[in-house]
């Protein structure tokens, strides 16, 4: 058993070395396929980070009537914090709201003058609500509309932000849909390309495989070296792809950071190195192995 395995591995390695042209072609194609898989992984990571970033920026303010005391408001805050859709809820008092307003519009002299002329704080106390997902704001708004304290609410800014939230929601939906469709198309192309490359490689060995059968080699002994070659091609392709992506992302990451709203692609790549290399190995070795298995079967009928 051990001696047979050793012979199969030795023969596979010799085949890989001697058919250097074919091996190089197989590595080239496999690198492309693995690159697609790696790209999909990175695309998923980047799009999730961008979506999360955008979602972080979306919030909703619930303004309450002037006569409501801060204790009443804290009670309402307590009640709202029990809603599962709400990730975070923060009480903003009238004074705080004024302070923030002044800070934000300090440079606008006309606005500051009109505020002074008013002589009192025109801003209302509010609760700042952040949901887990953009799509949940509609549900929260509905809940508030039907709640017992609806008559205490002066205004919810959901209606003003509704179109932005809606757009964000559709972007998120489309991005994940694009990811899935792109993934399916690329995987189909990758499988077809790899399968045909391996089939062409093995077609070259058609007569050799038949001869092996005729001199009494078992199917396992014939198939083994081709499978070993597939594994070697997959392994080298994974290493090459890892290197290409590592170097490219190291140099491209600063430019991509601007485009991806601060998402550091190189950092993401390094922190997921083990997962990425596993995906690369699995897709490279797996495809080579499977295609080889199917392609050889055709010539083992003698």
């Amino acid at each position, binding site marked *: 058993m051990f001696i047979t395995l050793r012979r199969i591995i030795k023969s596979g390695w010799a085949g890989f070395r001697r058919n250097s042209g074919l091996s190089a072609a197989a590595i080239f194609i496999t690198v492309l396929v693995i690159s697609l898989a790696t790209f999909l992984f990175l695309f998923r990571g980047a799009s999730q980070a961008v979506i999360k970033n955008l979602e972080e920026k979306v919030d909703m303010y619930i303004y309450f009537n002037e006569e409501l005391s801060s204790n009443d408001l804290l009670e309402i805050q307590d009640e709202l914090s029990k809603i599962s859709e709400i990730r975070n809820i923060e009480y903003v008092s009238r004074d705080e709201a004024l302070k923030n307003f002044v800070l934000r519009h300090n440079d606008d002299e006309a606005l500051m003058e009109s505020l002074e002329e008013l002589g009192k704080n025109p801003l209302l106390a509010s609760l700042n609500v952040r949901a887990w997902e953009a799509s949940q704001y509609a549900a929260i708004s509905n809940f508030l509309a039907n709640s017992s304290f609806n008559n205490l609410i002066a205004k919810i800014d959901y209606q003003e932000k509704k179109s932005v939230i809606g757009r964000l929601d559709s972007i998120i939906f489309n991005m994940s849909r694009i990811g899935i469709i792109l993934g399916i198309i690329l995987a189909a192309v990758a499988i077809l390309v790899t399968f045909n490359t391996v089939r062409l490689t093995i077609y070259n060995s058609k007569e050799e495989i038949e*001869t092996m059968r005729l001199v009494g080699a078992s199917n396992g002994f014939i198939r083994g070296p081709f499978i070993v070659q597939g594994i070697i091609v997959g392994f080298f392709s994974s290493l090459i792809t890892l290197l290409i992506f590592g170097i490219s992302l190291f140099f491209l990451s600063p430019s991509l950071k601007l485009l991806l709203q601060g998402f550091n692609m190189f950092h993401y790549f390094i922190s997921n190195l083990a997962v990425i290399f596993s995906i690369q190995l699995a897709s490279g070795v797996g495809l080579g192995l499977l295609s080889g298995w199917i392609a050889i079967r055709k010539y083992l009928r003698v």
Partner: protein
Amino acid sequence: MISFQKVTKIYQSDDRAITALKDVSFEIQPKEFVSIVGRSGAGKTTLFRLLMAEEKLTEGEIFFEGQDVHQIPFGKLPLFRRKIGAIFQDYKLLPSKTTYENIAYIMEVIGISEEEIAKNVPQVLELVGLGERAHNFPEELSGGERQRAAIARALVHRPDLILADEPTGNLDPFHTQDILKLLLRINEMGTTVVLATHNKEIINSLQRRVITLEQGQIIRDEAEGKFILS
């Protein structure tokens, strides 16, 4: 050892049926040296291909050591073929392996140890005069050298039967005699040899059993035959 019983092989080509063998019956005993003669296309190679279960029969039965060859399950065919040392007309050497590796391959398949392989392969290579060509690939060998490599591969694992299909077709008279002597020596050591050829001199010099095929049928089977074609 070998028994052909009313064997017929018909090839279907387009709308035409070509009869390669028709109603062929004969027996070969262990340790015999039998020559199959006939013109090109007489059915010699088909006979060998059927015996190795490389192709399916149209009719009849072929037995090897009491076993119906065409009833052997697909997975067991390698074990059966290991009992035969085949010298193919077109050599069938493995192009990506060196001469040494081609000959060692069958021993590796059987599971013979590395030491045994390292001992036997050079001996067989010397025997067929290819000692100097051990590390050359088939494409680097001449026609005659390839033929000798194919012969070495058929002998190296000491099979029960040697099927030699035109083994001297590409050899000069000097090497032809050498190979014949080798086959005779192997036969004397107890291996059954079946030789297919259309070389008159070889048959006449052998003075062994000759089966003559013509258009797929046996027209003569003589214990000490000569090369006679009508």
